[in-house]
């Protein structure tokens, strides 16, 4: 149910999020070293390990990026320590340089790398299919469907890794990572972290030229061994569905076979149930190497085989290669989609078309009909939080630039990515972590407009710095905006190298951004305080006027992070309010500002209103109001922190003051 269960030593059942279950399983397996860069949908693995590190003796890092994280855990595994990293789909692109070579060198200690894909791109820039990493890097890969299976595979993964001396990959998807269910809590047999002698376990982890050619041969042999050993793995299982329920044993009369993996397995079984179809199911847990003999044998005697997997036809194409005398259906036949995530209706539609069994319910028509009722609703798009420093920085940037068409705006990955979404839609590029710097380098050669590149602090440390070095070295003409909010905000305010705290809230060494940029040789650097919107306009104008590389570092802690710390320290939020006598409905606090704490009152001539339960008291709106109508509830009490006050309270206060006069 919560972190309490992750570290509960009682052996019982618990209701857990899959990401929590993964942490639990790794702790039970005596993992000793973990390192991560946060990113949906796997961030809760880091979050839970951070908390667990306060109880258990293990080494944990929030790494600068996924490549560093993977190299870190590989380093631990070289010394025989069980170690684990996890990363979002696209994070693996960053880590892949190390990943591909680690397959050549092998690893002596148990080492797991979990790759969390995001079909539907819920919180990612693409729907990348991470299964190809296993295949093309020659690394074994397991794929769970449920929290319970994820626990089993984490434990099995460590054993496999140690048995064969290789990094083992586990692939999940958003609907697995963010699925909760009942899982068994096993014994917590942990050993204290101890240093060991490298001399005793020394062997080269080197790969180049002759060594790489030797490593490749060993890697291929290793993969062959794994293929043989895993051929009859219980992680791949055959099930029977009789039209009503799922069984381990079945008859021999099934004509329909379904091969599936991951969360698609659950959609498949429920789709079969609604169609009342009987079928034989091969549920694959080992995604690389695929059990070819098992697949061939499974297909024998079947009329039709349907492959149900999300994203690319990774399994389907192998089935097509292996099985010639059975009709294979899936993405290649157009019955299932290569885009977006699946759900029960998507699988029902595919199976219905393939088998000719009528769909039991017209889901599309139902949705169309019901969504008509919701047409009166406004969209609820993601917006910057109340008090978010980014809102203030972008307000000043927009004023400094004037017409947004006057600049090329290279955006990057973080909360500020939201600038590219409606209704603001101000971003010319948004590719991947750190890309703003590289894109800006090319654009500034070709565009007549000034090029600006916006990047967050965590993203700068992650993948932005080489791009900055490149801009400086080539004497490019770009203004960089570093949004320094102290944390990796979007994933839940984890620390990063620019934060004084390291993993688990322990004291670390803060890497200051300004000296880093100075050291690289950025010619002009301006520090601004995000909330000082009016003053910042001129400073930004000056930075933009500079020919060459200039940087504006906008300092303002993530509001969620800042005000949470503030409240934990005993501080009371002091919201702002609208003085209705002064508000003239000019709406400077609404237009292009989009604060969730501000709405208007149509019944009061459209005057603005600040929701006292949402406002955190950043005060930026009060600086924008040309009528001076927005005031802090603290001002009337001499600036002291006070509990939430309402407009009514203020009016009473005004009356009292009048009466005193």
């Amino acid at each position: 149910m919560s972190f309490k269960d992750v570290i509960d030593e009682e052996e019982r059942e618990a209701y857990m999020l899959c990401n929590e279950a993964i942490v639990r399983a790794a702790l039970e397996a005596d993992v000793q070293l973990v390192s991560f860069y946060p990113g949906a949908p796997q961030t809760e693995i880091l979050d839970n390990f951070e908390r667990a590190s306060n109880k258990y003796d293990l080494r944990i890092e929030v790494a600068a990026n996924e490549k560093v994280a993977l190299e870190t855990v590989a380093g631990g595994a070289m010394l025989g320590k069980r170690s684990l990293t996890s990363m979002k789909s696209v994070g693996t692109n960053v880590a892949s340089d190390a990943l591909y070579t680690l397959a050549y060198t092998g690893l002596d200690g148990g080492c797991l790398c979990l790759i969390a894909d995001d079909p539907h791109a819920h919180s990612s820039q693409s729907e990348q299919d991470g299964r190809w990493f296993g295949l093309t890097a020659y690394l074994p890969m397991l794929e769970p469907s449920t929290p319970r299976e994820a626990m089993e595979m984490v434990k099995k993964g460590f054993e496999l890794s140690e048995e064969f001396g290789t990094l083992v990959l586990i692939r999940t998807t958003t609907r697995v990572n963010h699925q909760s269910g009942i899982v068994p809590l096993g014994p917590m047999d942990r050993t204290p972290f101890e240093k060991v002698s490298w001399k005793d376990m020394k062997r080269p982890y080197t790969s180049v030229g002759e060594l790489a050619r030797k490593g490749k041969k060993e890697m291929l042999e290793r993969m062959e061994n794994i293929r043989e050993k895993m051929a009859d793995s219980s992680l791949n299982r055959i099930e029977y569905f009789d039209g009503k329920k799922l069984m381990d044993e079945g008859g021999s009369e099934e004509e329909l076979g379904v091969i599936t993996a991951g969360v698609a397995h659950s959609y498949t079984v429920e789709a079969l149930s609604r169609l009342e179809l009987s079928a034989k199911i091969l549920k694959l847990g080992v995604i690389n190497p695929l059990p070819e003999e098992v697949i061939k044998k499974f297909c024998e005697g079947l009329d039709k085989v349907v492959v149900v997997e999300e994203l690319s036809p990774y399994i389907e194409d192998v089935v097509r290669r292996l099985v010639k005398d059975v009709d294979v259906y899936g993405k290649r036949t157009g019955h299932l989609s290569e885009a977006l995530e699946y759900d029960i209706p998507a699988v029902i539609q595919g199976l219905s078309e393939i088998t000719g069994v009528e769909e039991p319910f017209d889901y599309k028509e139902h949705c169309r009909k019901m969504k008509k009722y919701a047409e009166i609703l406004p969209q609820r798009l993601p917006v910057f939080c109340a008090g978010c420093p980014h809102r203030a920085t972008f307000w000043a940037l927009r004023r400094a630039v004037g017409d947004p068409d006057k600049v090329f705006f290279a955006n990057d990955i973080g909360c500020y990515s939201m600038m590219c979404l409606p209704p603001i839609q101000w971003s010319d590029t948004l590719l991947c972590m750190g890309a703003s710097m590289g894109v800006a380098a090319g654009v500034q050669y070709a565009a007549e407009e000034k090029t600006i590149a916006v990047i967050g602090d965590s993203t700068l440390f992650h993948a932005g710095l080489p791009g900055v070095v490149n801009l400086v070295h080539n004497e490019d003409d770009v203004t960089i905006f570093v949004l320094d909010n102290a944390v990796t905000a979007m994933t839940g305010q984890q620390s990063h190298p620019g934060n004084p705290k390291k993993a688990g809230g322990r004291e670390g060494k803060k890497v200051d951004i300004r000296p880093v940029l100075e050291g690289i040789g950025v010619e002009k650097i301006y520090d601004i305080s995000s909330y000082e919107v009016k003053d910042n306009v001129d400073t930004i104008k000056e930075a933009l006027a500079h020919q060459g590389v200039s940087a504006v570092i906008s300092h303002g802690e993530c509001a969620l992070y800042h005000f949470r710390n503030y409240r934990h320290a005993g501080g009371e939020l002091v919201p702002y309010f609208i003085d209705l006598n002064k508000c003239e409905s000019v709406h400077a606090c609404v237009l292009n500002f989009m604060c969730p704490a501000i709405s208007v009152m149509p019944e009061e001539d459209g005057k603005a209103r600040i929701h006292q339960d949402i406002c955190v008291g950043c005060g930026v709106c009060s600086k924008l109001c040309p009528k001076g109508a927005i005031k802090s509830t603290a001002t009337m009490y001499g600036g002291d922190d006070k509990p939430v006050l309402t407009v009514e309270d203020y009016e009473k206060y005004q009356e009292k003051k009048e009466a005193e006069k």
Partner: protein
Amino acid sequence: MKGTNIILCGIGGEGLVMLSNVIGEACRLAGKNVISGEMHGLAQRSGSVIVHMRIGEEVLSPLIPPGEADMIVALEAMEALRYLYYLKPGGVVLTNKRLVHPPGETHDLVMKKIDKYVEYDEVVEAIKEAGAELREVNALSLAKKAGEVRAQNVVMVGALCSALEGVIPRDSLIQAVKGTVPEKAVESNVEAFELGVDAYGD
């Protein structure tokens, strides 16, 4: 696949995931199988949030198909209507009596792209017109009454307890609430739960 399907929805920051944890834990305590799938958009706060909860021995998928939810529990009324397509015909919508206007709606109003805010009555009328059985709970006032403004979600758990009589035992839900909320807030949250239980019948 029989079982009980519940859609929980609301706005980021309202404690929806905590609500789903209470229900999940209560199911575990009662020895019931439960699966849930949560999804929050890009925003930490203010974005639309939905959690699929499925109770029953045979359920497998973390997603409820459209038209198959027995009940929608909404911490904000607009979100109930937004996800109404998940509800089975004649299913129950249990909503908090509360509307939160997204900043984009205010922006459109000021820009005169729309001529008025959507009103609470319009939203619940649409829910009823679509054939749902509407149940409303003023969770904010009940949470205030219980002495814990933040316990609106727990008020809704109480209301859900009445609505799901026979599916999840009340004792399990109370125990789950006690185990989930901070220790110093246990009393007020249990009070909020009880007020929610009574409010459902009104």
